[in-house]
């Protein structure tokens, strides 16, 4: 098994002001790529500014290895740009640091993992595997019909589905939304994606677009707060634990 997501090759960025480390990391990735016979598209950035410029000009990466202690714009700020300014929950960020202790604000960026220097090749390999799991469905589309016209939306752009009488409302990122006639149970059937689960009989949400979980409610990436119904709380909790377990077993 390689690290391809569907048809797309994994686009990886490395951002560290330590050139030595960039070279080392790149050669590790090259080696892994050779071993598994897949090509990665790797871009190296020596400063936070360079990476930001690249992102601002529309470049996107599946996975970014990001140093926390960059001068000028540091790793936290770059992460915040990706999550908040670009509204991007899909790009996976792996923080690199010389220290093992992390500030609270790093956790707001929802990183995939933390790596401590010196970096070992096995760690990179397991991070790649986890990233691949997370990114698994990022290029799939959800298809729905309005009248006789078929519409498609990128599943990874969907925050949640809401049942609204006889209609299903699809809430998307960037404050976008759309509506069509249908049932949530059909959506669940059709989407067949373990990232989506019910928190309420009329809310089917995307795990990856939640920025805060509590037992009683979730906060979505558009800062909207959705309640978890009494009946679903235990199931949601179980789901979270299972998802985490599955990720860990990849490691």
């Amino acid at each position, binding site marked *: 098994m390689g690290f391809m997501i569907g048809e797309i090759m994994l686009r990886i960025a490395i951002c560290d002001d330590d050139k030595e480390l960039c070279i080392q990391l790149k050669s590790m990735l090259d080696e892994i790529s050779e071993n598994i016979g897949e090509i990665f598209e790797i871009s190296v950035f020596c400063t936070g500014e360079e990476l930001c410029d690249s992102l601002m000009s529309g470049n996107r990466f599946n996975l970014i290895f990001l140093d926390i202690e960059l001068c000028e714009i540091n790793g936290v700020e770059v992460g915040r740009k990706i999550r908040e300014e670009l509204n991007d929950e899909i790009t996976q960020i792996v923080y690199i640091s010389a220290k093992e*202790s*992390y*500030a609270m604000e790093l*956790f707001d960026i929802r990183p995939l*993992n933390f790596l401590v220097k010196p970096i070992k090749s096995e760690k990179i390999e397991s991070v790649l595997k986890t990233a691949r799991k997370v990114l698994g469905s990022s290029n799939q589309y959800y298809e729905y019909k309005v009248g006789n016209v078929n519409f498609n939306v990128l599943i990874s752009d969907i925050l949640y589905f809401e049942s609204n009488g006889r209609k299903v409302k699809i809430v998307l990122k960037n404050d976008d939304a759309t509506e069509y006639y249908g049932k949530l149970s059909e959506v669940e059937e059709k989407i067949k994606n373990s990232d989506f689960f019910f928190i309420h009989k009329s809310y089917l949400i995307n795990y990856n677009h939640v920025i805060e979980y*509590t037992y009683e409610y979730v906060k979505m990436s558009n800062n909207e707060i959705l309640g978890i119904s009494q009946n679903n709380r235990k199931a949601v909790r*179980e789901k979270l*634990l299972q998802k985490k377990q599955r990720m860990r077993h990849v490691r």
Partner: protein
Amino acid sequence: MSGSYTAVYLITNVFAAYTLFRYMCIFFDRKDVDKRQEFMSYSLYFCIISLLYLSLNNPAVNIASNLIMFFMLTYNYQSTTKTRLIAVVSTYMILMIIEVLVMLILQNYGITVTSGNDAALITGLISIRIFSYIFMLFMSNFKMISNDIKVSNIHWLSIFIIPVGTLILVLIMISMDYTSNVKETIISIMILLVINVFVFYFYDELMKSYESKIEKALLRQQNNAYLKQLEIINQSKESIKTFRHDVKNHALTLKYYIDNHDRVGATEYLDNIFDFINNSKEHAKSGNSEIDSLINYKMDLAEKHNISSEVYLAIPHKLNINPFDLSIVIGNLLDNAIEAALKSENKFINISVELDRNVLYISISNSYDGKLKLTNNKLETTKDNENHGVGISSVQKSIEKYNGTMNIHYDGQVFYVDALMYN
């Protein structure tokens, strides 16, 4: 049986099913109950009992079907067989005594329920239901929920024998010809009821004493945890002392090299020190001092026993979860992991503690010798049963405080515990 009697019977039986449900609430905790399934089961109970009564009306069948179905209803709730048995027998005994008493008292006033007279039957039925309900309200002052409490067999038997005995006595009394001494029968049955109420009182007290015993054990464990924490602090103080002493020696050696203009020697010496610093492995340095010191302490212990370990910590300096609760969870889980790994061939422990979107995930996996028992998601190892149980139950208590949950699974070589707590 007339139509009006059947109608009244059905209506009052709904009420009776509800009363039964309330009796069950005295004995069982409804926290983890599937409400819909619970409702369905009581409805089913109502249907079957009504059907059996209206079609057969055989006393033996009524008693047997009631007892069996009471017992089945208890499976709505999580509990032990001992508690189930006490609940079933006591509830049935109470309902039966009330039924008999009401019948006898009415008979004493000239209303013979068994005469087949519709009015008498309906009066009897309604008064039985009402008295059962009132008595239940009185009984609900006792909370005899004992989910986690292990009652010793002899304690249980001495409680259990009383409602069972009462039930049999009452059955004997009403199967004999009591028409000549109704009053005496009423008094005897009343006395039995009073005795049973006092037994319930004792059962309640017994449960409380068991509970306080468990709490004391828990407290003792927490004290131990504090002691260990103190030990860790003392140890690190000790190592700082050694370090200070070492720095002095290193500085002296360096000064010696410099004084002799031996640059190569000085560099070599410094390289050695760097090697030493890089090699001295600290297992946890997340900056969260409580968790770091706990994991370092436990993993040092593991290392001394040749258990290899891997630690992944992705947590901030401070968590909202009380450090004390967290150290109960992690400390106890690590104790169990070390204990199990010790007995295995290829000894290892992996720990991961990770905060992701406000949820703290704790995952510990360790090697074990493949021998363990798991009942009801509760661990039972061979060693020191009581203490061990307290360890796991205090972990569960601390996790529950944060609405969390814990999963245990194993595959013959590796034992996994995954827990989640909302921060």
